[in-house]
C-alpha cells in the first residue's frame, strides 16, 4: 500500500483532537502508513472560502497539493470538506491547463513550488473500503458494540459524483458497510443523505437556518431509534454535537466520527478518543 500524507485540516486537530488520535491508531492497526504534511494549512473550506474568491481557494489548495507532491505521497483526509477542496482543485488543475498556469504562477511567486498534477486525494472511508477492505476491518473489530447507528454521509464525500466516482450518491452503501463491520446496525431513516445544515457558510452567516436543517435530520434519526450518530466529517460532527446543545435537550444522541467508532471496536482505551470535549454526552 502507498504511503499517505495525513491532511489534518482545522476542526479535527483543534476542536476534536480525539478524532486525530483515533485516526492515527486506526491507520496504524490497519497497516495504512501515514506521514505528517508539515506546513500544510486550511484546505481551504469548499463552501465558505470558495464563495469568496475561487482563485485564492484554488491557489491555497494547490500549495497543500504541492507539499504532498514534493514529499512523493498521496493525500488521505478524514474530513469531507478537506476532501472536496483538495479533490476538486486537483481535478480542475488536471483538466484546465489555463487555470493550472494561472494558479501555478501565483503558487510559484508565493512559495517557489509548482503543482504538477501527480497527487491522488483519498477520503478515508473510500480508502478503507477499497484498499483495506470490509473483511479486514471486521477481523480487527472484536470490541464492537451492536448499537443502532444513524450513518451520516454528509455532502462532499460522494458529491459531485461525476468526478468523485466513489458510490451512488442517492443510495450509497460503502460507509454503512464499514459501520456494520464495526459491529453496529446501520438503521434506515427518512431523508438519509440530507445535508447537516452547516456547509456553504450557512452555519457562520445564518446559524438558525443551519440548525433547522440539523433538527430535521435529528428528528428523523430519533424516529428510527438511533442510539448513535456516526459521521465521516468533523464539520458535520461539530454541527450535530453542538447543535443538540443549541436545541436544549430535545435530543441526546451521542455523535462519533467513524475513526472513533473504529478506535473503540479495535479496543483502543476510551481516554484515547478525546470524548470529553464532545458537547453532547457520549454514554456508549
Amino acid at each position, binding site marked *: 500500500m502507498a504511503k499517505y500524507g495525513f491532511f489534518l485540516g482545522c476542526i479535527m486537530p483543534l476542536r476534536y483532537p480525539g478524532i486525530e488520535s483515533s485516526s492515527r491508531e486506526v491507520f496504524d492497526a490497519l497497516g495504512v502508513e501515514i506521514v505528517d504534511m*508539515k506546513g500544510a494549512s486550511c484546505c481551504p473550506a469548499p463552501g465558505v472560502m470558495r464563495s469568496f474568491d475561487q482563485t485564492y481557494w484554488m491557489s491555497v489548495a494547490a500549495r497543500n497539493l504541492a507539499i504532498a507532491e514534493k514529499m512523493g505521497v498521496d493525500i488521505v483526509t478524514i474530513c469531507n470538506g478537506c476532501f472536496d477542496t483538495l479533490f476538486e482543485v486537483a481535478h480542475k488543475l488536471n483538466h484546465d491547463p489555463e487555470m493550472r498556469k494561472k494558479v501555478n504562477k501565483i503558487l510559484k511567486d508565493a512559495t517557489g513550488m509548482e503543482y504538477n498534477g501527480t497527487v491522488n486525494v483519498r477520503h478515508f472511508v473510500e480508502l478503507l473500503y477499497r484498499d483495506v477492505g470490509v473483511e479486514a476491518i471486521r477481523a480487527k473489530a472484536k470490541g464492537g458494540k451492536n448499537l443502532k447507528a444513524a450513518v451520516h454521509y454528509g455532502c462532499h464525500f460522494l458529491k459531485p459524483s461525476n468526478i468523485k466516482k466513489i458510490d451512488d450518491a442517492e443510495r450509497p452503501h460503502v460507509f454503512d458497510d464499514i459501520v456494520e463491520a464495526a459491529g453496529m446496525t446501520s438503521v434506515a431513516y427518512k431523508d438519509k443523505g440530507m445535508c447537516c445544515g452547516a456547509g456553504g457558510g450557512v452555519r457562520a452567516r445564518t446559524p438558525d437556518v443551519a440548525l433547522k436543517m440539523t433538527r430535521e435530520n435529528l428528528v428523523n434519526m430519533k424516529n428510527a431509534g438511533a442510539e448513535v450518530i456516526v459521521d465521516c466529517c468533523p464539520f458535520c460532527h461539530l454541527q450535530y454535537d453542538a447543535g443538540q446543545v443549541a436545541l436544549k435537550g430535545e435530543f441526546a444522541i451521542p455523535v462519533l466520527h467513524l475513526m472513533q467508532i473504529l478506535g473503540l471496536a479495535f479496543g483502543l482505551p476510551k481516554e484515547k478518543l478525546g470524548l470529553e470535549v464532545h458537547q453532547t454526552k457520549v454514554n456508549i
Partner: protein
Amino acid sequence: MPEAKEPNPEFTRKVVEAGGKTVNLCFQCGTCTGSCPSGRQTAFRVRKLVRRAQLGFEEDVLPSDDLWLCTTCFTCYERCPRGVEIVDVIMALRNMAVRKGYMAEPHRKVAELISKTGHLVTLRDEDKALRTKLGLEGTPPTVFSDPKALEEVKKIAALCGFDKLVQTGGK
C-alpha cells in the same frame, strides 16, 4: 401590470466567465428547488435564483440574502436533468457579490482568520493541553508550527488581492 424588466446578457456573460458556464442550460423544471434542504426551511428557491442569473438581473441576485442560504450540498447539481452545475453557478455569483461589497460580517471574520493564521479555527491553550494529553504534538504540525509556511499562505492572499478583500469586505 408591472413593467417587464429588460434582460441584461452582459451580466449573464460575466456569470459564465466567473465559472457558471452551464447557467444557460436551465429550462426551469424546478428539480433543484424540490431537492433543496435549505429551501425546505426558508423561502430560498434555487430555480428562481438560476432564472434571475440567466436573465442577467444583477440587482436581484447579488445583494440577495438568499444567495447565501445554499449549503453547497450538491443535491440539485446531482439531480439536474439539464446538467446545470448549479453549485458552480452559485459560487460564481457569490464571488461577484463579494467583490461588490456584499460580504456579511461573520463571513469577513472567517476570511480574516484564515488570512492571518492559515486556519479557520483558533489554537487555544486548552486545545494544546488536550492534544498533549492524547499523545499528540501540542501544536499541530501545520502552518501553526512553521512561520515560514504561514508567510507563504499570506503571500498567496496578497497576490490574489484576498488580503484587501478581507480588510474592506469588498467595499
